[in-house]
């Protein structure tokens, strides 16, 4: 009998509703891709196991607490979490990964991983979309300064001329815009690092 394919979004929804088996299906479906992705960054099996585990602990907590938005693909979201954990690891250890010359052949040292490039682009696009959505929560005067500065690349002098307020007021609005953005990101538990 042919097994029917259940979409990730359905499995996620079933899991949130209490079906633990759905999590197992999701892990089995994506384990290789996520594991390879982490390994390609850290080149260490034990560390990869740890980061893989921490990734899914974060996934579980976010799903169970109800903070997951089914806007992007589940796999992209999980990859982003694992990517952030890899970055956290290197930040904690204050070093970047380096290729250790050993007798083992390392495929990642000679092959360009296009899957990861595509993944990174998807992550970047998703982050940009999320930032645009968050900006919409800002008060109009702060939103205006931020868009002029970051999207239209105007100087604060030009912004003050356009908006009819002083440069100091524009700078102040930008400061509050950034503070508010940080607060929204923290409150909504959004991970934006690429």
């Amino acid at each position, binding site marked *: 009998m042919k097994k029917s394919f259940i979409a990730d979004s359905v499995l996620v929804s079933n899991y949130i509703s209490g079906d633990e088996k759905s999590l197992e299906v999701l892990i089995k479906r994506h384990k290789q891709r996520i594991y390879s992705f982490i390994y390609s960054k850290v080149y260490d099996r034990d560390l990869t196991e740890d980061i893989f585990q921490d990734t*899914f602990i974060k996934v579980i907590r976010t799903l169970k607490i*109800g903070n997951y938005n089914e806007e992007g693909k589940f796999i992209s979201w999980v990859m982003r979490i694992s990517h952030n954990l890899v970055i956290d690891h290197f930040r904690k250890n204050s070093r970047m990964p380096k290729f250790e010359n050993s007798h*083992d052949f390392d495929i990642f040292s000679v092959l360009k991983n296009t899957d990861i490039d595509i993944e990174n682009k998807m992550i970047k696009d998703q982050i940009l979309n999320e930032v645009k959505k968050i900006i919409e929560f800002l008060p109009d005067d702060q939103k205006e300064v931020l868009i002029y500065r970051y999207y239209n690349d105007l100087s604060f002098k030009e912004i003050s001329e356009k908006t009819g307020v002083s440069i100091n007021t524009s700078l102040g609005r930008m400061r509050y815009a950034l503070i508010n953005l940080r607060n929204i990101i923290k409150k909504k538990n959004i991970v934006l690092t690429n």
Partner: protein
Amino acid sequence: MEKNYFFQEEISLEPKRKTINFILNYSKSIKVLKSKTESYIIDLN
């Protein structure tokens, strides 16, 4: 037997079974408590 210098041990790039079991057990061991304003996770282990 002739030594094959091009032989590479095949490495399976996937997590160990015990890592997956740990994740699945973790998922079963936590409980979410929801108040009107916030949700909390309680680890039952």
